[in-house]
């Protein structure tokens, strides 16, 4: 003989909720509504997990792509600062705790000319070694480094001479002329797969200074990792010359990072509507069960069940229906995301996008947010419906 629920050491609301969950199966329409509510919540939870995972996946990939090409910390020194003060500022930055490296740079726009072809470029004049924002060439000896994409397009080879042209004029007997320097290509760096406004070219600082002057001097600094860089950057303002601007990788990519966050937030809100609709189905489901059990709720009232006990029982019943949906949705969502990511089942053209497949990343914080939202919506729905059971008058309910 099966052990009666009433013999188990369960609180009475649990006994009632579990028994009604089982007995409801005999009512086809109530069962249908329970399946719709639980299924809707499962779909909503799964959809939210998958959507957030794909956005997080892209964000993570894009972040990696961007951070590889962005200085962790960049200090823009005030215009007109002489070289000695700039070097002193670099040394001061270098001494700040947490700073792993600091390098003085000269920046400016210009053109690269080779074989009769011209390419507008961003010139980055560096000292000592190629900065880390040039992946594939970082840490190498001074020289001219061009992006692989440009090298491939123009068939450039290391050792080949190209001309670097600056818009800063120099006075000649023939009037003002743009400054031109012939520089030997030392190597290439891995160009980005995102659309960049202008290709960047790394060249020794002395060459850059003769072309651009020293009007735009910057210090590129790095910390142990990107998150540490944010904390370190806040300490730099105190040591750099007045009028300097300190930016982190986050400031430098603010519009893009903001757009990504906004996209994620809006998608979350949009897909949450599925959960909301499912929560309303849960209200309908519970309302039907309560309506069917009206007389029984009345009887329970006459034998001493308090409104709080009845409310708790129906909130629990709603919770059991919602919980099964949430569990199914979580398994479905996380499972799909992991499988799609692990086996790269959704390919995209690598030439068009910066990735070859759609990446999925299930973040624990995202998962917690989805489950918390669903839990609260389901709880509010169950509570609303259960309130009806608690407020029934026993005699009226029994005579229904």
């Amino acid at each position, binding site marked *: 003989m099966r052990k009666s629920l*009433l013999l*188990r050491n369960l609180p009475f609301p649990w006994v009632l909720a579990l*028994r009604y969950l089982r007995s409801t199966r005999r009512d086809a329409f109530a069962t249908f509504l329970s399946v719709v509510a639980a299924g809707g919540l499962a779909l909503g939870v799964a959809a939210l997990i998958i959507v957030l995972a794909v956005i997080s996946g892209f964000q993570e990939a894009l972040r990696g792509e961007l951070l590889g090409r962005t200085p962790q910390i960049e200090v823009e020194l005030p215009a007109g600062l002489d070289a000695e003060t700039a070097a002193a500022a670099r040394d001061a930055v270098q001494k700040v705790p947490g700073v792993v490296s600091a390098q003085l740079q000269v920046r400016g726009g210009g053109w690269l000319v080779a074989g009769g072809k011209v390419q507008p470029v961003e010139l980055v004049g560096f000292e000592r070694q190629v900065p880390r924002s040039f992946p594939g060439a970082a840490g190498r000896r001074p020289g001219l480094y061009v992006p692989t994409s440009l090298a491939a397009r123009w068939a450039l080879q290391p050792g080949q001479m190209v001309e670097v042209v600056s818009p800063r004029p120099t006075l000649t007997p023939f009037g003002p002329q743009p400054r031109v320097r012939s520089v030997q290509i030392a190597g290439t760096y891995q160009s980005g797969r995102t659309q960049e406004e202008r290709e960047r070219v790394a060249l020794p600082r002395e060459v850059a200074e003769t072309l651009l002057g020293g009007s735009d001097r910057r210090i590129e600094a790095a910390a142990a990792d990107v998150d540490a860089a944010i904390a370190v950057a806040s300490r730099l303002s105190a040591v750099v010359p007045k009028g300097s601007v300190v930016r982190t990788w986050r400031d430098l990519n603010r519009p893009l990072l903001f757009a990504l966050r906004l996209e994620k937030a809006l998608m979350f809100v949009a897909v949450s509507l599925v959960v909301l609709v499912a929560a309303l189905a849960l209200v309908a489901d519970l309302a039907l069960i309560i309506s069917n059990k009206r007389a029984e709720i009345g009887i329970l*009232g006459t*034998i*001493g069940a308090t409104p*709080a006990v009845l409310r708790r029982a129906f909130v629990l019943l709603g919770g059991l229906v919602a919980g099964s949906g949430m569990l199914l949705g979580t398994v479905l969502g996380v499972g799909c995301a992991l499988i799609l990511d692990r086996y790269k089942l959704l390919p995209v053209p690598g030439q068009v996008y910066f990735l070859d497949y759609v990446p999925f990343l299930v973040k624990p914080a995202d998962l917690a947010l989805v489950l918390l939202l669903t839990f609260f919506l389901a709880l509010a729905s169950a509570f609303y419906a259960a309130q009806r059971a608690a407020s029934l008058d026993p005699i009226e309910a029994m005579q229904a």
Partner: protein
Amino acid sequence: MSVTVRTAGLHKSYRDGIRRVEVLKGIDMAVEPGEMVAVVGPSGSGKSTLLHLLGGLDRPDSGTVEVAGQLLSGLSGARIAEFRNRTIGFVFQFHQLLPDFTALENVMLPGRIAGLPPAEVYGSARRLLVEVGLGERLEHFPNELSGGERQRVALCRALVLEPPLLLADEPTGNLDPESGELVFQILLELQARHRTTGVLVTHNPEIAARCTRKLRLEDGHLVPGNF
């Protein structure tokens, strides 16, 4: 333990369309410990309303109900439910058993609501059901029982916590004479054994005659009935 039920100046009226119908017009009654009082009267005279007021299932327009020294008007919704659970047992004309629970589980319900240990509640529910001849029907659901059996289960449920007061509303009204007699016999036996105070509403003069005292509800007033 038994109780005295005492009411004073109990008034209750209902709105019937635009008309206000006054059902109880100042009921003063006292039921002594261990008494079984029958309340008789024509249909619609307010017998059930009186029973609901005594059980705290309804509130009077004016007047007081005191059960076991407790004024019911002084209790909130939740407290009155708890008080009912421990102090008052109800039996209705229609068994009012929960269809999703077996006979044994139905009898265990008041004890579980009261928060008593399951094993203890099981013991007393089983003992009572065996006592009323339903030892073989413990695991049956209400729809598997006859009318008389259901009413016996309802009686067990009302008395399982040994409440000091039993309120019965036409407990045999829906049964054939034979089953009705058996149920009433059991009711009287249990009531006498536990010295439970009882108020019984009935149409049946024979049943009323076997109670300790008979009261007649006429035109909203309670008058001593004739045996």
